């Protein structure tokens, strides 16, 4: 029988008080903080449940993603078909979410628009992670001159206002979905590089890495077996938050008319349409649906990211 008390970890116990005491410290002048043996009854190895909100958020992201993926096979109207007999209609059985000022089905525009938003969001972060994340992992561990120059380079890039750069490039290069994805993806590289590098750096001199060295592990092995598993949670969490940020950037570009070309729907385009031509007062639904979907998606992604961080974080995960 696995002895349950062996699950007991002093660290779990530290965590309990460590997490709770700082709040108290703020209330009095005694500085109370995390102690290495704060609570020496050490039997609290428990994982906090992820909670109903997490699953709701995950369900919403899944619904949006599935709808976007299967948009072509879903029984939807053509998102660009203009039915002049049904302009600015409210929700009905035929048009579940209503129609816009050109008689286009709002639901189908929303679903096809999700495609653009999600592709831009996830693929560009994947690009950023592949380049910036890998670079950060290696750079943080190796240190030295390479790290110094990459780090300086990332500072230089970050110092340049990214949104201005993206606007300039989009205006110059063109407005296709893939171009926009790549441009934004490249834009996330320095950000993701810095986050992953910081995390990698914090593990580079841990005793377990030194132990691996003394056992004769090669540098790639240390990077992928020892450092990477510790960096992944941070990268994943921050990556998700970046996805949310990128979706907003796409929206901003659309607002400026610089996202994918109309009439192709993206959530940004839809929001932009909803605010133009006096649509806000005539048919606020055009603005409401994409805004609501984007709001819920961003909320969900951030919530998932936050819960995953808690779960992955070894200290917090114990509670």
């Amino acid at each position: 029988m696995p002895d349950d008390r062996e699950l007991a970890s002093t660290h779990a116990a530290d965590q309990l008080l460590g997490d709770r005491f700082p709040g108290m410290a703020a209330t009095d002048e005694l500085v109370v903080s995390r102690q290495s043996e704060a609570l020496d009854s050490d039997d609290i190895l428990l994982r906090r449940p992820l909670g109903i909100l997490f699953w709701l958020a995950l369900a919403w992201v899944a619904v949006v993603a599935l709808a976007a993926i299967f948009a072509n096979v879903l029984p939807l109207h053509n998102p660009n078909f203009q039915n002049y007999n049904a302009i600015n209609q409210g929700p009905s059985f035929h048009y579940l979410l209503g129609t816009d000022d050109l008689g286009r089905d709002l639901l189908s525009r929303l679903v096809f628009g999700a495609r653009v938003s999600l592709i831009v969001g996830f693929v560009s972060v994947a690009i950023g992670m592949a380049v910036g994340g890998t670079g950060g992992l290696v750079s943080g561990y190796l240190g030295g001159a390479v790290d110094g120059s990459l780090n300086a380079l990332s500072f230089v890039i970050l110092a340049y206002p990214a949104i201005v750069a993206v606007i300039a490039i989009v205006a110059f290069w063109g407005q296709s979905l893939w171009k926009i994805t790549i441009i934004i993806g490249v834009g996330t590289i320095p950000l993701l590089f810095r986050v992953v590098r910081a995390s990698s750096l914090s593990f580079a001199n841990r005793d377990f890495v030194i132990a691996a060295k003394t056992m004769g592990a090669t540098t790639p092995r240390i990077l992928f077996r020892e450092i990477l598993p510790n960096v992944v949670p941070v990268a994943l969490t921050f990556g998700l938050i970046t996805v949310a940020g990128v979706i907003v950037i796409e929206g901003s570009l659309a607002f400026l008319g610089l996202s994918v070309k109309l009439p192709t729907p993206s959530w940004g385009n839809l929001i932009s349409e909803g605010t133009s031509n006096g649509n806000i007062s005539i048919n606020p639904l055009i603005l409401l649906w994409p805004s609501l979907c984007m709001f819920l998606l961003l909320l969900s992604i951030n919530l998932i990211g936050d819960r995953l961080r808690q779960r992955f974080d070894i200290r917090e995960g114990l509670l």
Partner: protein
Amino acid sequence: MTTVSDTVPGTDDLVLDVRDLVVEFKTGRQRVQAVSGVTFQVRRGETLGLVGESGCGKSTTGRTLVQVQPATAGTIVYRGEDLTALTGRRLRQLRTKIQMIFQDPISSLNPRRRVRDIVAEPLVIWGRGTKAERDQKVREMLEAVGIDPDSSGDRRPQEFSGGQCQRISIARALMADPELLICDEPVSALDVSVQAQILNLLADLKERFSLTMVFIAHDLAVVKTVSDRVAVMYLGKLVEVAGSDELYRQAAHPYTEALLASIPEPDPDAQELQPALSGELPSPLDPPSGCRFRTRCPYAQERCAAEEPPLREIAPGHQVACHFPLHGTPAPADQAPAPT
């Protein structure tokens, strides 16, 4: 506990020969010497204790022995090969012969990996044995350190207490079949009760696997219990080297005497030998002239500031770096290097 100190050591018995080891760190534009010319030998089967306060360079010395910290000068000869001159595959191979146990048992295990994989790692790195053979060896080693492989193998380090993590860490170090084990403060993060368990375990394993050990700690009582010989370090230099019992009975360096006096005895009647060491370790950025201990030494004289005392033998196997040792004869003035 086996000791080889009573047999005459031949050259074959020399496992580690460290000569004039210097380790420097760069801080900004300055250079700090953490280790300033340390020379010692470790013979087969013995345990050499390395003791001193935080900042004296003992841990840096330990890390340099396993070459995770490069030496600035000096040589570390392991079985005839100078580790400081090696690179690449040969260094990686030789490293497995010298393994290290760390102070923080929890940080020395990768929190994301399972105990079984952590312990098997040395074999996996070198592709030794089949999967089944490796599993078998992991089981044996975990059992040897008192961890039940069945209930613990699939768990992750944070599910274990500090003492248990230290056992796992020891199992991992022994998987590579090392000859020399460097223990860097292996018990100072543990409760006294667990400390005794780990010290006993190390003694048992040392015998079972014919290990040679370098045991680094700040607590002389702990070091003395496990070591055959003890080297006392102060601000980057060795100040006294002697057999454990000799060191306790006849401490010749005032610093050793102070270290002995600061150990709390579990006895309310214990007489306080003398006021414990006052002051703190001087900054290694600007070490005192002459004898580095003179600023805290109750017996310091003018000569101590002027001349640096060399490490010299005052009795067989007993070396001390002091002009006016508490035992043995004062250093003859003409032997000392001229003041600079």
